[in-house]
């Protein structure tokens, strides 16, 4: 039996290590002629080459993934720690080694996704680990590139300094989230989606409204509604109410259009069936047409969760009390505090993902019967 099973990622990582040895020092010498962190270079090389070698033996998938994980991330951490403080001095071997570590992480993810487990917790954990490693490497490469090449802070700060900024400004960020998300976004989202839904039912009941509203709805959905933000500020003042108004306008039409489409989604046979029971309009609506429309309605709820956040943040650019995520972004950019801008963006991304995720979870529970959910 063959005791070797080389993967192309490990082989290539090994070759990259060799190439980095052949291409000189890892960083430019400083003014005193001292080469920074040349001492850890051996350790980094050993970590990457060692992990690559071990992974090529026939060992259990878990063990292989563990070795690769440790090798890749320890090496990346040493590289980034080395460059910190001497930004912009990185030479070719630095990037070659980062690339080699990245290949090992790739291999690690590939091994992890090939693992089949019976237990529910284990497969759940795997489903979380893989995207986490993936996301971590976006940050690692970002960090290595900005520090290695010494990209000006104003253009793109490294993620670590964004992280530090987030930790240091938690109270400000919390106040901004409270103002923008818990006031403007949530209020606007609930009212906008609710109104869109109710008007859709009204339009369904009254045919001439459907014929009049739907083309308008389709047209308005395609317009950059955010343009009305200054007008809303004039109408409803500087505080969150004007932002909520923008969110209401932005979320209303997608909900209207989707609900009307969904209400037409039930099959002819099912509707005939309800007719044979002499079911009245409301019974048919609640027992057949709304459940059949649920996938469309949830689609609108998901689209709107993103739209609402964008709407509220951008609307704050046009005037606001001195708090709010959009306000912070527009003022801190003017004061060259780019890390604060990125911190707000990160928080917005997190909040947006959470919002979307919660809606998607509710959708899974509510439309469990739909082929796209039950996987049939």
């Amino acid at each position, binding site marked *: 039996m063959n005791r070797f099973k080389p993967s192309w990622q490990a082989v290539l990582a090994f070759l990259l290590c060799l190439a980095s040895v052949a291409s000189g020092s890892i960083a430019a010498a400083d003014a005193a002629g001292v080469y920074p962190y040349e001492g850890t270079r051996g350790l980094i090389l050993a970590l990457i080459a060692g992990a690559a070698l071990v992974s090529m033996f026939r060992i259990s998938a878990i063990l292989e993934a563990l070795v690769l994980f440790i090798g890749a991330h320890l090496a990346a951490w040493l590289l980034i720690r080395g460059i910190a403080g001497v930004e912009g001095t990185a030479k070719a071997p630095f990037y070659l080694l980062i690339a080699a570590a990245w290949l090992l992480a790739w291999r690690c993810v590939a091994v992890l996704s090939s693992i089949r487990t019976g237990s529910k917790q284990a497969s759940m954990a795997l489903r979380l680990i893989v995207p986490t490693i993936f996301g971590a490497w976006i940050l690692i490469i970002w960090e290595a590139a900005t520090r290695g090449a010494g990209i000006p802070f104003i253009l793109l700060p490294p993620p670590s300094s964004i992280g530090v900024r987030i930790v240091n400004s938690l109270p400000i960020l919390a106040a901004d989230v409270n103002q923008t998300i818990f006031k403007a976004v949530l209020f606007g989202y609930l009212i906008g989606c609710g109104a869109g839904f109710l008007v859709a039912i009204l339009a369904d009941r009254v045919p001439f409204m459907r014929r009049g509203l739907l083309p308008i709805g389709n047209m308005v959905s395609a317009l950059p509604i955010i343009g009305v933000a200054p007008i809303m500020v004039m109408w409803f003042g500087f505080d969150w109410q004007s932002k909520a108004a923008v969110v209401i306008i932005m979320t209303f039409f997608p909900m209207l259009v989707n609900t009307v489409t969904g209400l037409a989604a039930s*099959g002819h*046979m*099912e509707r*005939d*069936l*309800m*007719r*044979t*029971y*002499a*079911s009245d309009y409301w*019974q048919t609506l609640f*027992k*057949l047409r709304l*459940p059949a429309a*649920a996938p469309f309605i949830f689609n609108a709820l998901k689209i709107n969760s993103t739209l609402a956040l964008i709407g509220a943040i951008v609307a704050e650019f046009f005037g606001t009390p001195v708090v709010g995520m959009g306000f912070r972004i527009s003022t801190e950019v003017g004061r060259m505090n780019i890390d604060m801008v990125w911190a707000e963006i990160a928080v917005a991304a997190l909040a947006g993902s959470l919002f979307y995720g919660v809606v998607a979870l509710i959708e899974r529970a509510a*439309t*469990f*019967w*739909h*082929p796209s959910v*039950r996987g*049939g």
Partner: protein
Amino acid sequence: MSIVIPEPKQVAAMSEIKNPVIEASKLGLTFQTNDGPVQALANVDLTIGKGEFVSFIGPSGCGKTTLLRVIADLEKPTSGNILVNGMSAEKAREARAYGYVFQAAALFPWRTIAGNVALPLEIMGISKAEQAERIKRTLDLVNLSGFEKKYPWQLSGGMQQRASIARALAFDADLLLMDEPFGALDEIVRDHLNEQLLELWGRTEKTICFVTHSIPEAVYLSTRIVVMSPRPGRVTDIIESTLPRERPLDIRETPEFLAIAARVRDGLRAGHSYED
């Protein structure tokens, strides 16, 4: 020993049928389509009495479904008259005069099997306790006890169709309209369901209108067989069955059965024009 094969007689005269449940006279229906009018039904005269089991047979497109839908008031005739239980089809539908079994099961995927059977009961405002009792009884009837909590997509096609029959039986209408209910099922399941349907009919005095493509099925089940032919859809023959009400499955090998089947086949051939 000689076997006397009675000549199946043609009975159509309306006056002979007492307690009519369905009375159609000069019934016609023309669909206006983009390629011009399609005459789905022309001049259909038919009376069906209480307790009859009437099968409709004929080539595809001859208007069997359309006729059933007219009776059910899912389609309005463009000429002629239709009475169900002595009232207009619309009034009869509003009085929940019939249960309709569609060609496909048409179960709601978000409801369990029990929930699907409960659907007409909920709409008709029947009490929860009574609902539970009827769900149990009708699911027993179609051999689906134990599947109450399953969802339709977890059941085989045959089981789904049986659930849809249970749903039509649940509210105990005296008239059952069934449009090729067993068309998609295999022979064995079909035989079994045919037997159960006959048994149910024998016990309950229901009137059943049954669309099928199968001659043996039609002969086995029916007291009368209505043969239809297309372009325009019309009734070409009505064959009275001489078989007893009590019918074991092996009645299908008796000469009497085969004679009626041959008669239906002849009727189908005569009505079927091959000029196109």
